[in-house]
């Protein structure tokens, strides 16, 4: 019976969990940098103010009572908060683990030692967008590269797991090999993840200067697919050119072979986030995801998170996107890839089309090919 008392990890679940497993919290609305592709700032739907310490601690108590397992603190730049140690203690006290998303520039010995001492940190993610200051600083500001690398070294000295995220844009797409060498050989990181600048926030104002065009996207896909072989899968992606390159290869091969539809193919998909996690803005507004920051579901310490999680019509609609066939959209009319497509991220779909329940044009393979792109 022991086996029957234990469920295999990852086995399918029939319904929505009683409470979210994880939360993404924008713990601050401030940042010391002004990156030209930042998704966070310049969202007209967002009130850029932040809550005092005691309000977050009260909310962390609620999370503890709900059995939330992991919290990711982002921003803005979370290391700008002077009360960060107190906030982390609040998470630890409530039996949670945590991660931090950072630009790395403010990480010093003291805070690194504190984080290590909690023994609850899954990782600190530092953004590195270039192999040298010239590339990295092109979008993130002068001096940010040197300080980010120093922050990584500081974390490594204190044996805090460092997760690096490389956001690919027009200014670093030709630097990917050097970035991989820096991160995986010189800094000896176990791996890093990639995505691409997306049409959100500040990036919308700088789209022409930042976003990859079709040829640059093709170059990024080809380079990253080659590097993943060279570095034996130490480069990962849930979005951006590497994820697209892998997915689009599969879709193209399936179409060529007349393969049956993919599981979940042919209808709108979701990233899975509304099934396991939820987000909170710096002003305490509960939202489905940081990429759907306009969609306020309630306010922390005023509304019950469990109630929102279980009964929010917005969340439930996101969870049932897979009942909407892609053939219902004119955008997908006569597309041969439909049986293998899920329409991708609802956040990006909203940013581009103004509709959550719509395929994301940015993730459209047919459009990529029509624009002259070739799958590597």
């Amino acid at each position, binding site marked *: *019976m*022991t086996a*029957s*008392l*234990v*469920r*295999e*990890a990852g*086995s399918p*679940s*029939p*319904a929505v*969990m*009683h*409470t979210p*497993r994880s939360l993404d919290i924008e713990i601050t609305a401030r940042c010391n940098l002004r990156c030209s592709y930042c998704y966070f700032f310049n969202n007209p739907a967002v009130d850029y103010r932040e809550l005092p310490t005691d309000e977050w601690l009260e909310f962390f108590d609620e999370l503890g009572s709900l*059995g939330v*397992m992991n919290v990711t603190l982002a921003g803005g730049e979370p290391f700008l908060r002077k009360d960060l140690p107190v906030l982390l203690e609040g998470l*630890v006290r409530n*039996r*949670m*683990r945590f991660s931090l998303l950072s630009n790395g520039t403010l990480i010093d010995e003291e805070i690194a030692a504190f984080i290590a001492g909690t*023994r*609850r940190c*899954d990782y600190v993610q530092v953004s590195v967008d270039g192999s040298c200051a010239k590339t990295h600083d092109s979008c993130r500001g002068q001096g940010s590269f040197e300080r980010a690398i120093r922050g990584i070294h500081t974390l490594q000295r204190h044996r805090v797991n460092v997760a690096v995220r490389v956001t690919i844009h027009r200014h670093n797409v030709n630097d990917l090999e050097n970035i991989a060498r820096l991160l995986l050989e010189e800094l000896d990181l176990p791996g890093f993840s990639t995505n691409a600048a997306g049409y959100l926030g500040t990036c919308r104002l700088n789209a022409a200067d930042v976003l990859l065009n079709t040829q640059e996207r093709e170059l990024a896909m080809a380079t990253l697919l080659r590097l993943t072989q060279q570095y034996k899968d130490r480069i990962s992606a849930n979005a951006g050119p590497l994820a697209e390159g892998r997915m689009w290869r599969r879709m193209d091969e399936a179409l060529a072979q007349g393969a049956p539809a993919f599981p979940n193919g042919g209808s709108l998909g979701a990233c899975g986030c509304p099934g396991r996690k939820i987000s909170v803005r710096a002003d305490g507004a509960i939202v489905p995801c940081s990429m759907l920051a306009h969609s306020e579901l309630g306010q922390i310490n005023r509304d019950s998170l469990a109630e929102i999680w279980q009964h929010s019509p917005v969340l439930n609609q996101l969870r049932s996107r897979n009942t909407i066939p892609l053939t219902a959209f004119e955008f997908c009319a006569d597309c041969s890839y439909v049986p293998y497509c899920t329409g991708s991220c609802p956040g990006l779909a909203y940013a581009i089309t103004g509709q959550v329940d719509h395929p994301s044009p940015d993730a459209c393979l047919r459009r990529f090919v029509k624009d002259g792109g070739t799958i590597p």
Partner: protein
Amino acid sequence: MNQIGRPIANPIVVLRVEFDDWAVLFNPDTAAAVGINPVGVAVWRGMDGKSGIEEIVAEINRNFEEVSTDALEEISEFVGVLAEQGFVGFDLTDKHR
């Protein structure tokens, strides 16, 4: 399970009831997690340091239908597995002392 004593659920471990009384035990100190069924949840809740395995099994028999005749052995093994992973400790003191 070779331990003799009353099992105690590690107080740092989080019990997350997720679907239809299925649950996850999560140890935030180690990041270890294990999924358990409703009987496992009842066993977990019974591990208060006051009850021995036999008493926990008796409680299971009272509250669940069609409990296996091997329940004592199986639950003992289950508790032993949890103990190996740091989810459970044992009170080895004589409770009558």
